[in-house]
């Protein structure tokens, strides 16, 4: 099993958010999690990435034969987990190019691969950026600083394509995007998709799933997955909302 979440219960500040949650993802699969606001979707994404504000009450997570709880945030990232943030944070004064260059090399170091030099990295970055229709000038700016909402999301996808993760978690990547930006972002994801990597797409709306076809759709309500199935579930939610699952 590639990612196995078993009986996961999590709380934050005395509030139980995830309750006995189970989820299995195999290599090459695309999973979508849909649910109303406050159902715990983003908490799940952050617990997977290793954010430290949460208290794990019960359960375990296996990722590529690792007990995930043995790894800290950066080790998980280096093992191939990538989280595209819902609200990417601005880091003033930190240029994108050296930032991503350090990121890719820290991953290579863990994998005992040779580090990529400046020149080859610059080439790689340029070609990936042009694939995503990202202006070269944007690469001269500081990380997320002064970016519009759409630019930030596009820039998340650029980072994802550079780091080429085994498991990419997209946390409400569609929120705040107009239809053109949504198309660029989803095209980027579709290009990255292979038989060796997996996606976990968290979304509130069905719209995104018109562009990225999931193999499985899960409905999450009140901290647990209440229904799983194919893309027909997304259509159901589009029609009737989350009401009937609550």
């Amino acid at each position, binding site marked *: 099993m590639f990612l196995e979440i078993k009986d996961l219960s999590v709380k934050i500040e005395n509030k139980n958010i995830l309750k006995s949650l189970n989820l299995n993802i195999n290599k090459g699969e695309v999973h979508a999690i849909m649910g109303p606001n406050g159902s715990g979707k983003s908490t799940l994404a952050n617990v997977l*990435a*290793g*954010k*430290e*504000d949460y208290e794990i009450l019960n359960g375990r997570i296996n990722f590529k034969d690792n007990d995930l709880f043995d790894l*800290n*945030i*950066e080790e998980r*990232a*280096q093992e191939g987990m*990538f*989280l595209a*943030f819902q609200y*990417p*944070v601005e*880091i*003033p*004064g*930190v240029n994108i190019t050296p*930032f*991503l260059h*350090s*990121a*890719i090399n*820290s*991953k290579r170091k*863990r994998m005992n691969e040779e580090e990529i030099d400046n020149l080859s990295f610059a080439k790689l970055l340029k070609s990936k950026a042009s694939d995503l229709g990202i202006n070269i000038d944007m690469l001269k700016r*500081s990380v997320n600083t002064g970016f519009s909402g759409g630019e930030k999301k596009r820039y998340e996808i650029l*980072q994802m394509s550079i*780091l080429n993760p085994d498991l990419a978690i997209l946390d409400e990547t569609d929120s705040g995007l107009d239809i053109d930006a949504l198309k660029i972002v989803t095209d980027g994801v579709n290009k990255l998709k292979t038989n060796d990597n997996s996606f976990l797409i968290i979304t509130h709306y069905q719209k995104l799933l018109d562009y990225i076809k999931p193999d499985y759709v899960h409905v999450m309500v009140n901290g647990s997955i209440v229904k799983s199935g194919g893309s027909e579930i997304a259509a159901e939610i589009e029609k009737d909302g989350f009401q009937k699952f609550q």
Partner: protein
Amino acid sequence: MNSETLNTLNSYSKNKYKYGFVTEIDDEKPRKGLNEDTIKFISQKKNEPQWMLDWRLKAYSKWKKMKEPKWANLSFPEIDYQDIYYYSAPKGFEKKPKDLSEVDPKLIETYNKLGIPLEEQKVLAGVAVDVVFDSVSVATTYKGELEKLGIIFCSIGEAIQKHPDLIKKYLGSVIPPGDHSFSALNSAVFTDGSFVYIPEGVKCPMELSTYFRINAENTGQFERTLIIADKGSYVSYLEGCTAPKRDDNQLHAANVELIALEDAEIKYSTVQNWYPGDEDGKGGIYNFVTKRGLCAGKNSKISWTQVETGSAITWKYPSCILKGDNSIGEFYSVAITNNFQQADTGTKMTHIGKNTKSKIISKGISLGKSQNTYRGEVSFLRKANKARNYTQCDSLLVGNQCGAHTVPYIDSKNNTAVIEHEASTSKINEDQLYYCRQRGLSHEEAVSLIVNGFCKQVLQELPMEFAVEAQKLVSISLEGSVG
């Protein structure tokens, strides 16, 4: 703040200071303590003319009547001026060596260890260096080449001998000896430092640099630097400094005077890395420095850039007196304090002439149990029509036991003056750290990256050759793992 952040911070505060070694070398000192005999001893050692000795003694008599300025946000035990050596020179330095073959190999070794090779072929290309060890200047590189352009770059001691007219005219003209007790003290006992004169219309083709090293124990360093840029000239000057690790505090009270005549520009950069004391706050340099520049002529410009990472106490306000019409003063500062370090630093911009402009960018970073204060004064005199100031002060707190303070004073006697002031204080942002780490960067790398980003506006003002060094120094001050 979560536990991992705290752990990393604790590991940062085990700051390793890699310049803390001592050079075993015979030195020559007068008796401890400050009195007229000490001053006569120094003056005699330096073979000074009578007028210089008289100038020193006058400053000394002023000092005796003065008290230390007390307005800074600093706490430290009273300095015992009678428990300090005021002069220390490696033996055999009655005369400055003519070339490196005459210099004690141990000294050359010291500077190699510090990464400041004295042999010119190894020196950073395009940088001329004057090296001051305790109280004497040991070497000045590229002198001949500069002389061809009429540029004078030598130790202040040599300038007193060879260029008395310039010294008499300008020494103490920007910082009068009686300005405050540290300037009086420096005027009385200053030992060495650099002198620069750029003739009319000459753009100095290389960076000029002075490197200060305190080696001897219980010794104060009182250097004096004087830079004069004649009409239409340009010079960029950089100073660096280190000291051995010692348990006692050592006093450093320098005076730096800059004079820019009409259309001249002086860029003065400092990378201050004196020994900061250990993680319990023991030892370290008391750094009481007076730096002041006079934009004397029209359209002149003086720009201060400082990266302050060392010293137990930093008390320093590089200032500009904007006398010439249209003159410009700038101050760019990064001050990092860790463990028990205290910094009270900032600037003073005095607008006298019309259309004068000043710009202040200050970045303070506090870690450990340190205290970091920005103190600035911007004043507009009556005739300073249409003068402008822009001030930006940002403080970054790392951890929850340190302090950041901002004390700006603004005084305007002219109602056409325009003043802008922006200030911010923030804690190192957990979301930024999370973001960086999610991309695979370690916690230390992430902190270093964020702090360097925070300082970038200032670091990019440094001359190219030193910007990279300064960036590394910033990282080292944070992590302390190198060395």
